[in-house]
Structure formats: structure tokens, C-alpha cells
């Protein structure tokens, strides 16, 4: 399954849906009922899915996989994945509790993804866009060489085709198993965005729960508009690191999307259900600005 491109996966999923209950459902505990992380209410899995995985009771935003996000964002049948077969290389021979190469294999099996991001082209309300979507379930959405390369590739494609770039971030930061190379991805991706900026190609960054570390301190913070999902944890350092550094408890709401909005780092905090509409308005603006 690791070597399955996303369009193949969509195809497979479609077939499975027709055949019977999707096997992916099985990894949700209890299958049919899900307990909300925030308000503890039990939600019927199908209702949660229908509501884009937002708790109908308290509005808590569950994490979406890259595939779910693409489905929720890109017009049906318009998505083409790019570079689905890029894989990380364990060039340091890094072993912590397990060898890095094994970790990668495990994550591939678990997620059906080749690394922590999916990139591709598609349409959003009929507007052609390049899109990158990170997936937190692949090694905590950590950024290594593959994430850096794919962000760069999709940025270069957008530059080439003069179409807007949208990136949904969800990341714990740099992938330490790739040492300094993971740090260099911050430089690499930011350089790619520098080119987009010079060419006046719009770039929209959407930060979802959580977006921290090297991802935040590079491409996630550099949107022409920075957008966030409600309650998403967004920061440079993780809250635990800060608590250890300053030896005090952090105030409630610290580093949440609304906190960043208040502190001037985020333009819009948008509920998942309204996100596509919001993006459409913004893209429509840029599309027309480019014409006049």
C-alpha cells in the first residue's frame, strides 16, 4: 500500500465503498461511536464524518488525514497527485528506539502515504490551484527531506503555471532523524516561497492542529494570508518545552489559533465547514487581481 498514489487510493476507496464498509473505519475505536476529545460526548461516526470531523456539540476539530482534507477542499475528480513516490532516506543510519528506516516503513503502512505530505494539483470551486496537505499521522507530520522537497516542487509548479498555492500544515516540527538536513528544509521551502512572492503568485497557508517548530518557522507562517482552524495549537516551541524553560504553567488558550489571531499572526480563524467558501473568496480576489 505504501506505493499507492493518491488517485489510485481514491479509486480503491471508491471501489471499497461500493463493495461494503470501508476498511479504514476499523482503526477508529468502537467503530460506530466516537467520544469527543473535548466535550466527551459520544458521536455517531457517520455523523462525525458528514460534519467534516467537527464535533456537532462543541465544535472540536478532529484531525483530518491528508486524503480527507483533499476530499473536503478540492472539487471532486479534479485532484492529480504529484510526486507520490518520493521516499525518505535514512542517510544518517539513525537509530533511536527503532531504526529510522523501520519507522518510515511502519508509517507508510499505517497511513498509506509515502511521507508526511501529499501534494498535487486540482480545482477549488473551479479555480486551478496547487495544494500541499500534511498528515500528522505520518511521524507526527515531521518535516524531513521529502516534505521539504515536495513543498518546493509544488511551489515551483505553481510558479511555472502561475496558479495559487495552498498548504495545509499539521506538523510537530523538524524530523530529528534526518539531523541538520531537516533544518535545511526550512531554508529550502522558504526560498521556494520567496520566488512565488517575487512573481506575485498567491500563497495561502492554513494551519491546523498542531503546527509547531520548523514548519511554523518556515512555510506555514509565510502565507499572503495565514488562516487557521479553531483551537489549533500553533507555535514555535511546543508548550512543554516552554514550560520547562520558564518553569511556570502556561495561560489557558496559549498558542491556540485564536491567541495567534489576537497577536496579529493569523488573518482568519475559520471553522472547517466554512473553510472552502473562505478560500474561494480569497482565490477569487487574487484571480481577478491578476486579470486587471
Amino acid at each position: 500500500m505504501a506505493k499507492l498514489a493518491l488517485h489510485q487510493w481514491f479509486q480503491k476507496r471508491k471501489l471499497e465503498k461500493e463493495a461494503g464498509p470501508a476498511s479504514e473505519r476499523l482503526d477508529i475505536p468502537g467503530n460506530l461511536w466516537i467520544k469527543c476529545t473535548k466535550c466527551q460526548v459520544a458521536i455517531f461516526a457517520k455523523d462525525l464524518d458528514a460534519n467534516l470531523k467537527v464535533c456537532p456539540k462543541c465544535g472540536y476539530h478532529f484531525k483530518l488525514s491528508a486524503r480527507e482534507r483533499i476530499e473536503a477542499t478540492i472539487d471532486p475528480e479534479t485532484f492529480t497527485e504529484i510526486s507520490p513516490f518520493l521516499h525518505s532516506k535514512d542517510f544518517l543510519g539513525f537509530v533511536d528506539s527503532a531504526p529510522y528506516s523501520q519507522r518510515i516503513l511502519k508509517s507508510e503502512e499505517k497511513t498509506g502515504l509515502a511521507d508526511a505530505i501529499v501534494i498535487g494539483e486540482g480545482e477549488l470551486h473551479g479555480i486551478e490551484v496547487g495544494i500541499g496537505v500534511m498528515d500528522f499521522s505520518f511521524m507526527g507530520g515531521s518535516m524531513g527531506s521529502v516534505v521539504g522537497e515536495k513543498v518546493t516542487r509544488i511551489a515551483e509548479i505553481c510558479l511555472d503555471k502561475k496558479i495559487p498555492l495552498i498548504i495545509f500544515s499539521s506538523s510537530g516540527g523538524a524530523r530529528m532523524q534526518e539531523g541538520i538536513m531537516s533544518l535545511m528544509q526550512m531554508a529550502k521551502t522558504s526560498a521556494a516561497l520567496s520566488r512565488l512572492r517575487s512573481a506575485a503568485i498567491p500563497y495561502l497557508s492554513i494551519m491546523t492542529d498542531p503546527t509547531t517548530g520548523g514548519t511554523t518557522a518556515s512555510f506555514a507562517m509565510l502565507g499572503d494570508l495565514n488562516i487557521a482552524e479553531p483551537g489549533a495549537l500553533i507555535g514555535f516551541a511546543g508548550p512543554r518545552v516552554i514550560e520547562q524553560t520558564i518553569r511556570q504553567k502556561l495561560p489557558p488558550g496559549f498558542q491556540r489559533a485564536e491567541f495567534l489571531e489576537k497577536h496579529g499572526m493569523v488573518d482568519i480563524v475559520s471553522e472547517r465547514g466554512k473553510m472552502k467558501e473562505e478560500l474561494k473568496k480569497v482565490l477569487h480576489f487574487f484571480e481577478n487581481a491578476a486579470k486587471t
Partner: protein
Amino acid sequence: MPQKPNRVLLEFEKPLLELYKKIDDLKMQDMDMSEEIKMLEKRIETLQRDIFSNLTPIQIVQVARHIKRPTTLDLINLIFNDFVEMRGDRNFSDDPAMVGGLAMLPGCKKSNPLGETIFDQPVVLIGQQKGSNTKENIKRNFGMAHPEGYRKALRLMHLAERFNAPIISFIDTPGAFCGIGAEERGQAEAIAKNLRSMAGLSVPFISIVIGEGGSGGALGIGMGNRVLMLEFSIYSVISPEGCASILFRDAKKAPHAAEVSKITAIDLLEMNVIDEIIKEPVGGAHNNYKETALNIGSAIKKHLSDLARLSSRELIADRYRKYRNMGYFTEE
């Protein structure tokens, strides 16, 4: 009576202690012992050379963090003339953990039809600033800048660009500061914006790791066309201690983390993350500031003269190529 020097010896330098003591004793005597002292000093040098040619990564970490290691301002004052320090981010504050300003680099060479001209090159300098003692370190926040430090650096980079002056950055930080204020004022935003801006700078840009190159905080002023490293400095995505406690769940495994993470100058040169290693004096940079400064100065001049041949467009393209190529992956 001559005072005993205030030496700070690292664990692995302990073999030197006895020799130093002997010299100190000789100096206390009434007779002229200069010949004997000279001999002892030679033995010390030989021993130092020996020790420093076989340092383990965690020992290099210790040298890189040495309290007496020359700081950014120490080096600026030795390498450049007429330094004018510029303060403030024009937004919120002046960050003492990040310094910068205008200076002249003497002794630069330019070839022309009539031969070589020697001239003073105006440069814009930025760098993290550590202290040389606890009091200074508290003032300088141990070289850990807040967002305003990165924004000051950005202001100076834009000034350099406007006036067509090359930029030299000195990297020496455990990392960007982690705290409530730093998060509130957008540490991530400040670093990210610097990265994007550095990529587009139209002037030659050289970054030099002179001590600790701590993660995003280091990279935040470090996207030079050329990245150089002092021999016993380090550059890493996370400190060995941090890596050990997160990945190995045991802070004591820092030596192992330092080993496997590849954070020394030699490792980084091999991976093409840096372009050159600048030699340190025998016994490390803290043993001879002047020689350290001389070595750095020569390296800067060499690379500036190389970069002077590139147009603004080429400088940007050169930088793009450099960072575009970073990463290891397969595609099948």
C-alpha cells in the same frame, strides 16, 4: 607579584593542568626561568595539538560553548574597522542577544588591468551575542534572541541591500528563545520571514558559525551564499541534550546524540551543508582571539572576492541552488 591567569580548562584538557601549574610555579621564582618556561609552553602546545586533533563530537560541543570562546563582538572588533552598532527593530525593542551594524573590512583586494587595488569594503554585520561571564550572559540572554532580534537583523539586511553592501552574519546561539513573550510576538513568524527574505537578498551574504549553531535560531540569520564554520563549532537541528532526552529518553545520552546527529564542521562539510571549515588556533579559538579573527577575516575576503563576480540576479540564483539541493530522498 604576577597574578595567576584565570584559566577555564575543560575535562579533556586536564592533562594540561600540571604543565600550567609548573609554569605558574616557575614564574613565581626570583630567578630568570624564561628558557624553562618556553620549553614547557612548547610541550603544552604539542599536547594541545594532540588533544584537539582527536576530539569527540561531545567534546567539540564543549569547545563550541566555551565561556571564553570569542563572541561575535569580540571578533567584529578584531576583524573590522569603524564598527557602528545599530540598535532596534523599529517595532518593539532592541534585543541585546542580537547585534549588528555597519563596518569596514580592511585589506580587500580587487584585480584590475593595472594590477591589484587594496581597499576597505563596507559590510553590514549581524550576529548573536553571548556573554563572557554570567552577568553578561544574563544581559545577552545567553545569545538566545527574541523575535525582535530577528527583526533587527532583517532591518539590517534590507539596509545592506539598499546600499549594496555585503552581509556577514555570525552565528552563535543555543537557539531562538522559547518563552511566552517570544511566542506572543511571533518567534516563528520572525524566523520564517527572515528565511524568505534571505533567499531573495541581492547582495553577497556570508554566514559563519563561530560557536553554537542552534537550530532555527541559527538558521534565522544563516542563509548565506557561503556558510563557513569554525573548526570546533557545531550546527544542529536540536541540541545533543534535547535530542537525547526526546529521542533516547535520557539526557545523559547527549554524547551519543552528538555522535549520531552529525553536528560537527567535518560532518557538515561532507553533507555540503557548509562550504568551508575555518581553522582554529592550537587549543581552540579561545586560546588566541587574534589568530581566530585573522583566519576568519581571510576566509571572508576570499569568499567576498568570489561572490563579487556575481550580479544580484546571480547571487539570488546561487543561493536558491544551494538550498534547493539540500535533502536526501529516493524516488521510485
